[in-house]
């Protein structure tokens, strides 16, 4: 009666990987593949006797589903930008084709390299392969420019997965978001390939490029503007372009509408914290709004309105998909608000005040990742103090 759905052949294969079997060492790999195909059928041993149908695989899958809209728009936008740069005749399918040609190799490298390390460490630790990398693996190609050299990506992923996650004990134990750490590694180790005006658009070899061609992102145009920034930017990209995502940038970050759809899905499903997302947006809008109002003569980045800031750069993508990472963000409800607000605030400071880089989301989130335990500690101490106070009464 038990296991009636399993076939004898399956059981025989299974036995090879169980304790005493010749391939027992590779049991984590087998288990990962097996539970990929069939959900686990184990039963509860004690109360509660029933369990929610959710597991970490499903949580990660939901995030992946939520990443599909920005991924699709991102793929389309790669092609769209390339076609525009070359002045080629526009065709939807050509745009998709160019986009896939760029994106698929990045995706394969990301999953290949990341899963390799994940499995190696699972075998060393004799643990089941965790699902943590499923999301990271899709996030990474979405937060790099389309022109990123493949070897750099592979090295950056290796660095981030091993030093950012596995040395701490794997999924659930990392301090900073692994995808952002990958990007930060590229940002500091190979700055020429991930910032500036020349990396955001893939150019086909042998195709004509106009002489006056530049592909500055709206944010870098804002930083370079000497007067009111918005007219300079909107001369090139309309607000609608920014909202739909037809602007140069990292692959997944450009389309705000796609990101909002993903955010709605994750918040509805309950896998992303609305507190963090709203906190971040409030922090960015409040800070940039204040800076514009308080500045005697707002020019350049100071002249951008809070809504302009939301539409530009990778802020929304970072906030929705990476600031909400449950492992590297605070766990207390109050902590999530504080953490979110501070991410928004730091992003605003880096964008507006810092002269070096026009985008600050990545660094703001990484910084607050590091501070997340401190925020939680403070909130938890309040609770402890309240308990002590109650006791003293």
């Amino acid at each position: 009666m038990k296991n009636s759905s399993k076939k004898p052949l399956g059981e025989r294969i299974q036995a090879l990987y169980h304790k005493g079997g010749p391939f027992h060492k590779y049991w984590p790999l087998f288990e990962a593949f097996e539970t990929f195909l069939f959900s686990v059928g184990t039963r509860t041993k004690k109360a509660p006797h029933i369990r929610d149908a959710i597991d970490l695989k499903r949580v990660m899958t939901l995030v992946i589903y939520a990443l599909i809209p920005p991924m699709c728009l991102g793929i389309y936008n790669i092609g769209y930008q390339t076609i525009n740069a070359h002045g080629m005749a526009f065709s939807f399918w050509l745009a998709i084709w160019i986009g896939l040609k760029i994106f698929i190799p990045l995706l394969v490298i990301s999953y290949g390299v990341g899963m390799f390390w994940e499995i190696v460490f699972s075998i060393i630790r004799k643990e089941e392969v965790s699902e943590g990398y499923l999301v990271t693996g899709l996030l990474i190609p979405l937060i790099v420019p389309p022109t990123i050299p493949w070897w750099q990506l592979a090295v950056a992923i290796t660095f981030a997965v091993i030093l950012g996650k596995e040395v701490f004990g794997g999924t659930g134990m990392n301090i900073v978001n692994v995808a952002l750490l990958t990007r930060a590694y590229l940002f500091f180790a190979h700055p020429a390939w991930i910032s500036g005006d020349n990396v955001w658009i893939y150019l086909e070899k042998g195709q004509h490029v106009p002489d006056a061609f530049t592909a500055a992102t709206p944010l870098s145009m804002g930083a370079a503007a000497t007067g009111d920034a918005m007219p300079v930017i909107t001369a090139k990209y309309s607000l609608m372009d920014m909202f739909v995502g037809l602007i140069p940038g990292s692959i997944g970050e450009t389309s705000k509408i796609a990101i909002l759809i993903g955010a709605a899905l994750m918040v509805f499903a309950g896998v992303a914290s609305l507190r963090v997302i709203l906190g971040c947006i409030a922090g960015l809008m409040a800070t940039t709004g204040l800076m514009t109002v308080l500045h005697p003569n707002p020019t350049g980045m100071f002249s951008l309105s809070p809504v302009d800031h939301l539409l530009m750069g990778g802020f929304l993508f970072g906030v929705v998909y990476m600031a909400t990472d449950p492992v590297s963000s605070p766990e207390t409800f109050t902590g999530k608000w504080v953490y979110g607000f501070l991410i928004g605030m730091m992003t605003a400071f880096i964008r507006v005040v810092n002269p070096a880089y026009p985008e600050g989301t990545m660094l703001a989130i990484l910084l607050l990742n590091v501070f997340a335990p401190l925020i939680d500690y403070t909130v938890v101490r309040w609770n402890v103090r309240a308990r002590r106070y109650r006791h003293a009464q």
Partner: protein
Amino acid sequence: MAVYTVRRGKDLKIAGAPSPQELKVDDPPVLGVKPVDFLGIKPKLLIRENDRVVTGQPLFYAKGHEKLMFCSPGCGIVTAIRRGARRVITEIEVTRSGAEDSETFRVFRESELANISVEELSAHLMHGGMWPYIRQRPFGKIANPSISPAVIFINGMDTEPLAADPCILMDGREEDFRMGVRVLQEFTHGPIYLTLPLKTTGDPPFAQVAGVTVHHFTGPHPSGLVGTHIRHIRPLKPAEIAWTLRAVHVADIGSFIRTGKYPVHRTVAISGTGVAETGYVHTRLGVPVSALIEHRVKDEWVRYISGTVLTGSQVEKTGYLGFYDNTLTVIPESEKRDFMGWAMPGWRKYSLLKAYASCVNPSKTYHLDTRINGGVRAIVNIGAWERVFALDVHISYLIRAILAEDLEEACDLGLLEVTEEDVALCTFACPSKMELGEIIRKGLDLYEKENL
């Protein structure tokens, strides 16, 4: 009198709630007592196999508490004393025979209660096997008779899924309940609280009793757990003890005092999707599961749970209903493995998150089985615990402190306010499939060991 609204929590949409109809069952020929029902008690036997016992006769006492007796639920022969791992006594089986003889205890009139000392009264309750009904917070164990409780909580509600309705259990027991409350009054100078669900139909008749302060709770489970009540009505200070009793147990104590007989009557709800018809039966303490379900079970492969799906204990068909339990839940067992379940829409999967397509129909109820539905992972906190946890405790940090065996920190974080029943819903909801109840109990055990 106050109304408290609990917001964080969830009433699980599980099918199989007991219908209010009365089911008939035969008088059980054998009865059982399970020493493992009594958390932290090491039984010392007073009888041997083949001894004849009468109703209310002590079967064993607690090691270290020679006066704390546990009594026979019926009259007959002790036909088996079963032991489990490490020779722990798991079951004492009494096969009923002969006339229904019963130990007779002293009968008290209400006016007499004021004249006897607390020590005498507690000795009387312990001798008569009534003391185990009085449990205490912190720890959720049988109350320590040497500490006077600062406050007593009587729980007149039950929000656990498929649980017996306390109003039905208390039907016609107003006099017993009144006497029970009167007995409890002797033990404390502090308040006695009776907690009831907020209903438009008003309070049940047993609530009309002097000497208690009534508070109402509304909202999803765990609004009916005593841990939630304590948090809202009167949180405990260090070294304070609260006694916690269920209303039906207070009535049993009252009946014992009034009649001088060990109360053996039990109303039991039979619930769950594993039985063909649900309902309530009138039977005895220590009733075997087989006598309750008879031929009502639909499928062979089911799990019998003495208590509820969230906090009950698994029993065999040949086993017995637990000492504290008024519910027998029968749910299907399953080891079915879904093909690529992580990617499928999941029209028939139940989750508190809106993670499956089934969430489009919020009024649907589910035939939940015993599958864990996932592998054990490290904590990835997406707020699943916090959303269903109603105490003023940062549960994820408390769990971590216990896992790190940092007891001082765990106490600061509120370890003593929690027992496993308070986190049962968190364990249900956990995407990492952690056993939070086990961790909480481990923390409480460690604390008790270090503070002996």
